[in-house]
């Protein structure tokens, strides 16, 4: 956007967002063109409209939206920006769809440093570019100091799914296998380790990643034999499987020993009294797959860098009580319930 007349350059090093950057005036235009367009740069944004038009290929459209309020904003393995791109891409991808476009809406607290905003916008841009997805429209609001904790981001995603795919949480069948794409709990443990009142050292980083390419190889291997996919974010694996059990009206039986958990995550959970299967992930998926195709899908997952630790962790069973059960590593069995209470607020 061209801005006429003299305007002081955005001080991306030491400057801070003030209320004028959300007021609809020249300052806002400068923030959008000087920071967000730079970071996201694409042909749609370059046209500077309040919306973007795009061509739609054959197939059904998929749409999702998500708000990101993670605290802290920066963490090992990513920041709120990359998370806002990966998370929404993943929600689109869990339908088997190819994600295409994102919108991004920013609610920024007055006083927020431009330098931080730039790092966040740049990592959104690079997360989107490496995923082959475009951020084509957005919005910026600035609120008074104390009315938002630094920065909140909302992203909406649109994708296209092939006609023959109809993944849904009510489609699991008795005998289906339960696959996970890798180690559980990495993101949640990383965020906890960075909370001010919980500071501890860990070598774990967030697993935040866009999963649509992994999904593509799984769909190629399993097609409509993939009944359900979910990314187990808040509430972890336990919440995801309980949701699917309820929607599909069956139970699951898991084998604790086959569930991948990194030693550092297991140790942290031990210390904090948490269960890794309740802890959030941002770069993992759970797939419920027809038994005859499960091995092929698992092999495809293991051949992909984001699925190298994938595992078959259990099966769907007939159960009118809709229990998720687990054979414990100790030789007993137990229920895997939803997480109740607040494990830790604002994990994503």
């Amino acid at each position, binding site marked *: 956007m061209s801005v006429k007349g003299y305007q002081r350059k955005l001080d991306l090093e030491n400057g801070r967002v003030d209320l004028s950057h959300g007021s609809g005036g020249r300052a806002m235009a400068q923030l959008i063109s000087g920071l967000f367009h730079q970071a996201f740069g694409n042909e749609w944004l370059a046209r500077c409209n309040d919306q973007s038009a795009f061509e739609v290929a054959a197939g059904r459209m998929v749409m999702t939206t998500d708000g990101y309020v993670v605290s802290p904003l920066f963490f090992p393995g990513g920041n709120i920006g990359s998370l806002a791109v990966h998370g929404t891409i993943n929600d689109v991808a869990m339908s088997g769809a190819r994600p295409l476009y994102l919108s991004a809406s920013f609610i920024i607290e007055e006083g927020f440093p431009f330098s931080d905003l730039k790092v966040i916008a740049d990592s959104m841009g690079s997360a989107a570019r490496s995923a082959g997805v475009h951020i084509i429209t957005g919005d910026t609001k600035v609120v008074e100091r104390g009315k938002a904790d630094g920065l909140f981001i909302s992203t909406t995603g649109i994708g296209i799914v092939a006609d023959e795919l109809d993944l849904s949480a009510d489609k699991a069948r008795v005998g289906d296998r339960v696959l996970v794409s890798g180690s559980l709990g990495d993101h949640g443990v990383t965020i906890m380790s960075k909370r001010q*009142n*919980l500071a501890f050292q860990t070598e774990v980083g967030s697993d935040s990643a866009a999963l649509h390419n992994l999904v593509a190889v799984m769909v190629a291997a399993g097609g409509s034999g993939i009944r359900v996919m979910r990314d187990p974010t808040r509430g972890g694996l336990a919440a995801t499987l309980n949701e699917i059990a309820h929607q599909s009206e069956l139970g699951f039986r898991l084998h604790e020993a086959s569930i991948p958990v990194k*030693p550092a995550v*297991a*140790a942290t959970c*031990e210390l904090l*009294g948490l269960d890794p299967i309740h802890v959030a992930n941002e770069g993992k998926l759970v797939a419920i797959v027809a038994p005859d195709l499960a091995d092929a899908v698992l092999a495809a997952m293991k051949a992909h860098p984001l699925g190298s630790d994938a595992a078959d962790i259990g099966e769907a069973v*007939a*159960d*009118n*009580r809709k*229990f998720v*059960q687990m*054979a*414990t*590593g*100790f*030789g*007993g*069995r*137990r*229920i895997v*319930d939803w997480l*109740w*209470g*607040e494990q830790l607020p604002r994990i994503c």
Partner: protein
Amino acid sequence: MKFADEFRNKAIAQGIARAIGGEVSSQRAYRFMEFCGGHTHAISRYGLEDLLPANVRMIHGPGCPVCVLPASRIDMAIRLVDRPEVTLCVYGDLMRAPGSQGQSLLRAKALGADIRMVYSTLDAIRLAEQAPSREVVFFAIGFETTTPPTAVMIRIAEKKRLKGLSVFCNHVLTPSAMHSILENPKIRDTGGVPIDGFIGPAHVSTIIGTQPYEPLAEQFGKPIVIAGFEPLDVLQAILMLVRQVNEDRNEVENQYSRVVTREGNRRAKDEVSQIFELRAQFEWRGLGLVPNSGLKLKPAYAQFDAETRFAIHDLRVADNPACECCAILRGAKRPVDCKLFGTVCTPETPIGSCMVSSEGACAAYWTYGRVRDEPLRRTS
């Protein structure tokens, strides 16, 4: 995980389970109460009951400090934090503990009360240092294990002259609760306590040692085995209890000898006795008023006692009459015997004490154990 996996070894577990199976007499039942929530959690979390013979039954005891905290103490805390100058520091699992009339600290926080979730007494000290104009009150709760850290906090507050820091003291004593369970007239009059032995506390015993349990074992003729919180500890303790029952012994034995001694931690005990003194009685949810079962600050430390400082008086709140916690905590009933269990009383909206923390008998059963009792309907 080094030093944890060794105590969760499946092959060793199966060996101990076989030994238990070989030694129990089929002619009798073995009913053991694990006093501590930590044991309840281990039993449920690892599915330990699946490894036990059918005639060995575990009864989940009252050893979860959040669970036994009565509604009145939550109401008192809410009154405290209603004062605009007060910042209340609490452990996270207290947030949902039910007060009277649906009140909880979580709800009070949503209504604007300044309540902070903390992970240790050090967090409360830091808050008091950062906000010298605030009245920072630490909601002290727990058995003998968590009392020494509260004592240390008061020492530090004294040394640093933190005038704004005080303690809402809810520390309780394990042996008095065990005594109360064994002595309760309601149970005695209906034919004796259906408990054949106790698995005694792990962490509590690191502080108080095994000696305080000796009079209980002798007076009531019940074997007590102090055990660690790992699943192999619990299994081994059950085997030791089975042997005592079979040999008609009523001794205090120490399975957790890698940490616990007969005398306990003298320094911690000294520190506690310098700062705290016995309350004549303290209310336990499910057990009622138990004599000599709670601690308060000594008069010399009155300035750190939130109850004195803010003139918060004792309240009495009746438990929900349909709630069976009282019988469940004593082993007279099981969670499924309660009409409220799983209907209006769930971990999200606990009515009774046993449903509050994951270590409570009902919550552990709801979260991990239901699968054994709820029938699976066969559909064609």
